């Protein structure tokens, strides 16, 4: 069974890739939304003045 380490490594690599993808998606979404909010906030601020 010691020859089966490549299955263990493959499973952890897949798990790591999926977890990193989820984190990147949530953080990326947050950054993009923050930029859109800033742009809209700036526009509405200019209109108020």
């Amino acid at each position: 069974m010691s020859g089966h380490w490549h299955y263990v490594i493959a499973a952890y690599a897949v798990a790591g890739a999926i977890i990193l993808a989820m984190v990147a998606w949530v953080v990326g979404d947050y950054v993009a939304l923050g930029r859109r909010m800033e742009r809209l906030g700036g526009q509405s601020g200019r209109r108020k003045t």
Partner: protein
Amino acid sequence: MTTMFARLANPTVFLVLTRRLLPALAGLTALLFAAGLYLSFAASPADYQQGDTVRIMYVHVPAAWLSMLIYTLIAISALGTLVWRHPLADVAAKTAAPLGACFTLLCLLTGSIWGRPMWGAWWVWDGRLTSVFVLFLIYLGLIALQRTIEDPGQAARAAAIMAIVGFINIPIIKFSVDWWNTLHQPASVFRLGGPSVDPTMLWPLMVMAAAFLFLFVTLHLASMRNELLRRRIRTIALLNSRTQPA
């Protein structure tokens, strides 16, 4: 308790609370993963039959538990949308579905990699594997439904009904190993008579399960914040377009 629930129904209070909570949750998740990985690789022994491939259990089983737990959360949120009309229920269900799909995919792929050396096959259409695959398809269906209907209220109600109907699959997954003759092993942790897993393997499994749970809670709260922000942006954009001169 009711007062706290009512306070959390206010999206602004939710945003303030989660902004304070998220850094601590992310730190705790990282610590749990570090401890879990150490226990999985350095402190737990190889199995006398499976050898080192048993270490796949420490990522496969927590993902499997989470895939069912997240769906249960979505079904409860669906009730919250349809019965109590809780303002955050739809947000919770909508943001949990993609995370649930990812954890189910993780469970299916790691299970397939574990199955190859143990069963001699990447995939078999037995009760447990097929019902988890159906759960993955239900998650994809929910995501599609939430995104294809334009009216947000209508989309939330349609997805809530689908989520409640799809909940029938959760007990099928749980009891599939008892109802049908399958290659997949029966329950060995949550079962009558206590866990049959040796403590040297049970502890790493529990720490990894806690790490996965905290990862989900952290990502889910962050996604809910994102969704609330998206809805605010949509409202501001709509107001801006109405105030613009023709």
